[in-house]
């Protein structure tokens, strides 16, 4: 029989406001096994934890029930407390009387009644708890970073700096990501390339970092500390090790009419290409969809001009298998498609562009060499209308856009407006907005400068319609503050398109068994306290794959993720989850059902000798669970008809005890 201590937390008034904590601790006193029951303002505080430690010693407690907030908050805390008090950490159960009781019920009587029942269920479970000891597994001291934008670059650099090998997998032929396409960065207006490209070079030169560019992750197996990952290196038809990046092939390639992705299709590139001058790795890639040699075997110019002999038309996709201890997801974002926003005439006029296209138009390395010219006629625009929140904060138009705020648009639009007015003071700049959101260091000052010093016309209201007429774009909009309709003849309209997670994120999440929210942003293990970890152990989040972020935020999260990875990789061994399946070999039939449903291949079989009646011996095939590989889902326990397979920490008896207690 256990000696259980019950500790009811008030959580200030969070619980005590709706649950009579005194009544709960009194009621639970009479439950079987309970020898001590108390309540306290903040059980998670040092004083609260000390109270538990003292009670364990004073009352020789063998089990602890804490009625408090969700176990997702403080189960780990109280397990540590138990360990400090000399108890096995798995002798602790949490009754969630905050998130699943006091916060969802309003009436004190109802809340108290339910809290008591939840407490009883936890007591019933602890009565059947057994001390559990986690197994240990070695850690592969290598990290994988998926995505080579600024988030991936920063994470990789920080991990490498700590002395661990890191691989970056990037789908594009070069790392750099979206930041490489930007012109200037707010609010300091320093040039994006000037601050990014040195980091890219650092990556290339770091001995601890390998770059798999033009590659993607195709399979992830294993678990924290021991991931087995398959990376597909797509054939680029150029031997990376030999190519010097001289560019002779690019120059001579006869196929020069391929839309240039890097400039968002606003100019063309050749079939063999290097995305931009500072690309890392600086090697050429042949676009198989446009290369005549690959399509019909007629050409071969690049091969002829390549002095290094790096061209290899027969190159195949290559699959690389590697083991990693940790995985960082840094898959980034894309602006959403403007196809559904007919009202802005994006598909009808070349002069309606997105903000990212605007970045390329103002970038010295862009299609117009940095001169702000209209795409349609390459004339200088005199009236520019910026439309904010295109597809963002779109609660009523979820089929077109996103409900969330894309966060970065207010600031980059202010930047665009300011830079335009700075370089071309003869240009009238209008910005239509719902709200201007500028929380951030020096952000509001930046925005005010745009309005006050640069004379940008900020108009609260949305643009209803844009339509081309002659060489003008007719903009119909409302000015909510002055309550009037506006008609502006614009030369250029710039849409601040919402951003969304990269499309590769969803299948990747499935491979990683990492969860995502409904917008396909990765879910963090805790929104406040564990923002760079995914709920899947060993998988970390960096940058905009987790939610919209600007560069400084991305970089800080990237470094934070790196710190988490490093703190994982410095360990020689990892304590596993002791709540794993185990098979009672006396009852096991060896039928293989469990093996078939195990997603981790944790179950194997062995022929085992059993002593039978009358000194006979029988050999039977029985299941064995590898506790290091088992992740504790419990799927096997249900397909096992005899119940030989059970799950530690969530045993049949324990769950049934909870059911019984709840239904009493």
């Amino acid at each position, binding site marked *: 029989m256990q000696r259980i201590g019950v500790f009811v937390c008030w959580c200030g008034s969070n619980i005590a406001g709706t649950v009579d904590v005194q009544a709960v601790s009194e009621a639970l006193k009479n439950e079987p096994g309970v020898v001590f029951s108390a309540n306290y303002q903040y059980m998670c505080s040092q004083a609260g934890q000390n109270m538990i430690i003292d009670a364990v010693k004073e009352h020789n407690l063998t089990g602890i029930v804490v009625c408090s907030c969700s176990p997702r908050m403080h189960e780990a805390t109280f397990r540590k407390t138990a360990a400090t008090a000399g108890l096995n950490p798995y002798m602790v159960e949490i009754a969630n009387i905050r998130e699943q009781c006091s916060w969802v019920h309003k009436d004190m009587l109802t809340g108290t009644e339910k809290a008591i029942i939840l407490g009883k269920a936890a007591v019933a479970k602890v009565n059947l708890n057994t001390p559990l000891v986690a197994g240990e597994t070695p850690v592969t001291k290598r990290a994988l970073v998926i995505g080579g934008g600024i988030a991936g670059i920063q994470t990789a650099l920080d991990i490498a700096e700590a002395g661990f090998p890191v691989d970056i997998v990037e789908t594009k032929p070069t790392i750099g990501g979206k930041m490489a396409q930007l012109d200037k960065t707010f609010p300091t207006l320093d040039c994006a390339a000037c601050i990014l490209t040195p980091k890219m070079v650092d990556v290339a030169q770091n001995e601890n970092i390998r770059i798999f560019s033009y590659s993607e992750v195709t399979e992830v197996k294993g678990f924290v500390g021991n991931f087995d990952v398959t990376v597909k290196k797509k054939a680029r038809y150029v031997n990376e090790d030999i190519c010097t990046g001289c560019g002779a092939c690019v120059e001579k390639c006869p196929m020069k009419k391929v839309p240039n992705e890097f400039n968002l299709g606003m100019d063309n590139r050749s079939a063999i290409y290097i995305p931009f001058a500072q690309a890392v790795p600086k090697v050429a890639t042949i676009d198989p969809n446009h290369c005549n040699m690959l399509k019909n075997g007629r050409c071969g110019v690049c091969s002829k001009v390549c002095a290094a002999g790096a061209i290899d038309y027969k190159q195949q996709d290559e699959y690389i298998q590697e083991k990693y201890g940790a995985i960082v997801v840094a898959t980034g974002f894309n602006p959403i498609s403007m196809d559904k926003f007919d009202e802005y005439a994006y598909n009808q006029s070349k002069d309606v562009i997105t903000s990212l296209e605007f970045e390329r138009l103002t970038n010295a390395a862009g299609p117009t060499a940095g001169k702000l010219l209209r795409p349609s006629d390459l004339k200088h625009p005199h009236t520019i209308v910026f439309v904010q929140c295109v597809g963002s904060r779109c609660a009523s138009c979820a089929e077109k856009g996103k409900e969330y705020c894309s966060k970065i648009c207010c600031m980059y639009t202010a930047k665009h407006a300011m830079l335009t007015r700075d370089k071309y003071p003869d240009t009238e700049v209008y910005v239509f907005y719902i709200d201007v959101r500028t929380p951030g260091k020096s952000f509001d000052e930046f925005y005010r400068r745009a309005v006050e010093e640069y004379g940008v016309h900020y108009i609260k209201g949305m643009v209803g319609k844009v339509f081309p007429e002659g060489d003008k774009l007719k903009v119909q909009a409302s000015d909510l503050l002055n309550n009037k309709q506006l008609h502006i003849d614009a030369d250029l309209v710039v849409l601040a398109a919402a951003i969304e997670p990269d499309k590769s994120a969803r299948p990747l999440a499935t491979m990683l068994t990492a969860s995502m929210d409904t917008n396909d942003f990765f879910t963090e293990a805790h929104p406040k306290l564990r923002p760079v970890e995914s709920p899947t152990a060993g998988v970390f989040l960096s940058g905009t794959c987790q939610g919209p972020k600007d560069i400084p935020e991305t970089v800080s999260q990237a470094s934070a993720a790196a710190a988490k990875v490093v703190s994982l990789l410095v360990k020689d061994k990892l304590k596993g989850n002791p709540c794993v399946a185990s098979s009672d070999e006396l009852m096991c039939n060896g039928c293989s059902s469990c093996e078939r449903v195990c997603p981790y291949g944790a179950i194997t079989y062995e022929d085992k000798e059993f002593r039978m009646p*009358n000194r006979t011996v029988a050999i039977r095939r029985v299941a064995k669970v590898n506790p290091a590989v088992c992740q504790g889902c419990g799927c096997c326990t249900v397909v096992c008809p005899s119940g030989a397979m059970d799950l530690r920490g969530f045993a049949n008896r324990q769950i049934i005890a909870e059911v019984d207690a709840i239904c*009493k």
Partner: protein
Amino acid sequence: MYRISTQSLNTLFEEISRVCTLYIPSENKKGDSVYTRYETGVEYSNKLNTVRSPKDFFFPQMENLMEFKTEGKTVQLIDIREETEDFVVFGVRPCDVKSFEVLDNVFLNEPVDTYYKNRREHGVIISLACNRPAETCFCGTFGIDAAKPEGDVSAWMTEGYLHLKPNTEKGEKLVSAISGILEECDDTAVTALQENINNIMKKLPLANVTTEKFGGGKTEEFFNAPEWAALSESCLGCGTCTFVCPTCQCYDIKDFNTGKGVIRYRCWDSCMYSEFTKMAHGNNRLSQKERFRQRFMHKLVYYPENNNGLFSCVGCGRCLAKCPISMNIVKVMKTLGGKDNG
């Protein structure tokens, strides 16, 4: 002796059920005869045997004994027995009547099982002679006369009439309570029937199975007999034989936690089950052979040894008909009893 026309059988049942609850054999949807509480419309079935034996009336498969309730740290014990009322069971075959004697020896000797005793005292048995014994019948082996049923009231079904003869005080009381619909008669018709039955009994295929070789004191002789292995070879270890048997009396006592208290109940157990009489040290019969042997040794050796030679089998034939693999006491007796047996 009394009689009533078989056409007035329902009148008889109505009359008895006016006095107290009456159970009669009646056919269920599957064509099996089962004891059914009589009410208007329930039809009597003349089938030889009910699927379940009438031991259920005195020793039900499942019976709540008492209840515990806990209040804080105190335990309260509650007797949950309800007062049993008088009841009548009609149509109990001579073999089944004999089975009550086997059960009585177990439950009515010290320490007396009051649950059983209570029901036994309230039950009135109207037995019925077997006009058409089955091939599986071997009551004669155990000295039971299918033509002379015992019980509180004996009954015979002759051409056109049901004859009744009270044997006990309870029987007399019942007959006098319904005497209004009975007519007195002599025993000519019954004697003729008995003779007929006796002739049939001699012709039954199992008529020559004898208990000669068995009885108390034979443990040494049979316990290690090599034949047990082959006999039990294909036994599935199910409890069918024990549960349809009128004399099997083993039970287990268990507690059921309702969440609000604990109900202590008993239910039939079967020596064929792997957990039968499992004790703290483990199980004393580990193989099906041992469990199989236990059942027949008990019926043919241990029980008679402790009960003045009375065998714990009445030859009703239910296990012969119901065993999924057709292994049964007759095959055991014939195998162990030597060539001459049967």
